[in-house]
């Protein structure tokens, strides 16, 4: 695989192991706390309170003691976005509104990042199965949902490899700028991966143990 595609396959969760207070709270409690905090932040109208809340949210993020290096890539995008947002809002609505709006966004993002950084993927998948359990009555199978998400995570690398192969084939044929020469073979390969995955699951007896 060429370098252009290789960085895309390097998918790992954003979770960072650690011993901070947030790391020790359960995934469910953190999710509820995050929802409540976001609701409060969106209700605040005063620029001073909004800025204070944003500052507090950043402190919560810092308290996770996640190394700054893990945050540089997302932070760069967020900082640029916040600058653009603040300027656009200041121009359209005035500075007090701009401070309120940008502080809200910063507070929500920082808190959500703090939760994602301190919660391992397996705990989140467990939480999803637990949250979905009441929906079993209306035909949602929580185990099946967790299985689908796990397969999709595995599938990202497979699909990227399929697109990369189609891209190499396109280069080899010399049709450099045709989107069609890239996307059609990519889709055919992708569908074939899905078929093969389905056959693989059936061959291993997936689904036969379930009583429905």
């Amino acid at each position: 695989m060429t370098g252009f595609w290789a960085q895309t396959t390097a998918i790992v969760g954003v979770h960072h192991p650690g011993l901070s207070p947030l790391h020790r709270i359960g995934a469910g409690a953190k999710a509820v706390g995050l929802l409540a905090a976001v609701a409060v932040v969106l209700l605040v109208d005063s620029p001073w309170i909004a800025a204070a809340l944003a500052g507090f949210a950043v402190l919560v993020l810092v308290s996770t003691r996640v190394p700054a290096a893990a945050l540089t890539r997302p932070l760069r995008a967020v900082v640029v976005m916040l600058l653009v947002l603040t300027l656009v809002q200041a121009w359209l609505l005035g500075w007090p509104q701009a401070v309120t709006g940008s502080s809200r966004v910063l507070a929500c993002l920082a808190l959500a990042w703090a939760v994602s950084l301190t919660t391992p993927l397996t705990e989140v998948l467990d939480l999803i199965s637990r949250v979905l359990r009441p929906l079993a009555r209306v035909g949602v199978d929580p185990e099946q949902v967790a299985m689908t998400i796990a397969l999709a995570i595995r599938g990202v690398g497979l699909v990227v490899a399929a697109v990369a192969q189609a891209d190499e084939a396109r280069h080899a044929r010399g049709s450099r700028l045709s989107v069609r020469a890239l996307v059609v073979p990519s889709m055919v390969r992708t569908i074939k991966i899905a078929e093969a995955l389905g056959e693989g699951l059936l061959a291993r007896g997936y689904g036969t143990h379930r009583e429905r």
Partner: protein
Amino acid sequence: MPTPAVDDRGSAPGRDRATRDIARVAVFAALIAALTLVPGLYLFGGAVPVTLQTLAVTLAGVLLGPRRGVLAVLTYLAMVVVGLPVASGFRGGLGVLAGPTGGFLVGFVPMVVVVGVLAALALRRLRGAWLTAGLFGAGLAGIPALYVVGIAWLAAVLGVPLGTAAAMMAPFLVGDVAKAAVAAVVGSAVARALPGVVGPGR
């Protein structure tokens, strides 16, 4: 998820189809993630990346139909929420949904339903160039479904009027129309390349 009107998942063929559906839904969720991460064009100094993400969502609607298309989008959104860096610019976690452009992720749900329903109709009734035109129409119809949610969300988070939020999104419209055209050409080509695989109920 709504249960199908006729629930035959207890029988062996129904169960096999449910298992194959899981595989397709998972792989198309992975496709949305993969096409999101492929570097695209960057607007506003890198703050807003234009990716092939909406192309992947439209293709999910065209090639999977509305039901499995929605499941693929929901699976992708679940991947974002659980903290995998599969949103644009390698972002991940709930912060992406809470941010100003979160509505453009949630809006994929109505978008894929609209595209899926209309594309299923086109795949059943049309052939050749008419099929491509029909799929293009289906892709175009998905755009307002996405923008309504995305623009309302943007206006609410930023506290700007709806009209202003809509104006901020105008540059993306060109790209999304182009992506609907690509999805139509690809959809009809794949329907020809893999007959019996593409389309609803297969």
